[in-house]
């Protein structure tokens, strides 16, 4: 469903950034240095925010922040003509830092895979959804039905993506890199897989059938 924003008038601060970045020579260099000075703390904050969940620490984390800030600055200068004033310039710019941090973390896990490609850790599926081991009798059939539906309802590519992300816990961005794909394409594949699996489990009485609600 398309959701285009209406271009708004550009606020004074954002207009100032656009002017400064369009200046020639030293004035532009000064604006770029000032912008980098804003981006680096955002990158550091973001890697620190995600840090506790990553197996990356110390200097490597700070390197990642520096690289993200530098690459975000490059992306911003290359795309500044696309800024339409729908938000503050700095918000638009911070978005590039966040994307760079995401991409670099995805790449890190691609280079240092936790789970070998091709492995299938089905025994971990119940834990992924928080099933209580003490109540296995209640969910054993459901877990088996999920696996059966994955094998029979999904295309080979959908199955590969589902197993990697859901069963093995590979981050989606890392999988996209491994398959030479994009976050959007992998998400779309997972979206279709989820829809098919839900329909199959509902048809077999494992989940409520709410097809009347359009899901």
């Amino acid at each position, binding site marked *: 469903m398309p959701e285009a924003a209406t271009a708004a008038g550009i606020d004074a601060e954002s207009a100032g950034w656009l002017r400064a970045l369009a200046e020639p020579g030293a004035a532009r260099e000064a604006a770029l240095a000032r912008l980098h000075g804003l981006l680096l703390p955002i990158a550091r904050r973001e890697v620190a925010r995600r840090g506790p969940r990553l197996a990356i620490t110390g200097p490597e984390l700070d390197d990642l922040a520096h690289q993200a800030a530098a690459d975000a600055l490059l992306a911003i200068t290359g795309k500044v003509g696309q800024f339409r004033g*729908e938000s503050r310039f700095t918000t638009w710019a911070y978005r590039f830092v966040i994307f760079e941090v*995401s991409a670099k973390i995805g790449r890190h896990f691609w280079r240092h895979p936790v789970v070998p490609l091709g492995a299938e850790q089905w025994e971990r599926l119940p834990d992924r959804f928080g099933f209580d081991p003490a109540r296995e009798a209640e969910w054993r059939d459901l877990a088996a039905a999920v696996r059966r539906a994955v094998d029979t309802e999904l295309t080979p590519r959908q199955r590969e993506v589902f197993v990697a992300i859901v069963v093995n816990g590979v981050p989606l961005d890392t999988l996209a890199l491994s398959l030479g794909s*994009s976050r959007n394409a992998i998400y779309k594949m997972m979206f279709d897989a989820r829809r098919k699996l839900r329909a199959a489990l509902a048809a077999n009485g494992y989940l409520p059938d709410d097809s009347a609600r359009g899901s």
Partner: protein
Amino acid sequence: MNGWSALERFLRTDPRDVGCSQAMDMLHVYAELVAAGEPAEERYPGIAAHLRACGPCGEDFEGLLAAIRGEAP
């Protein structure tokens, strides 16, 4: 049962979901609305649906929101 509902929630898809590309194109606009306390979800239901379902995009949204709010990590 917790796991049962987690699985059910995970498999439930929202037809309004716009996908990653469109959500990321508008993330700065959406995050500013949220930070300002505006009804972002009403204005962009497809983006809201996507951010609820997509872990990586939801993570990027949380990061951008924290950045513009100047929150400590």
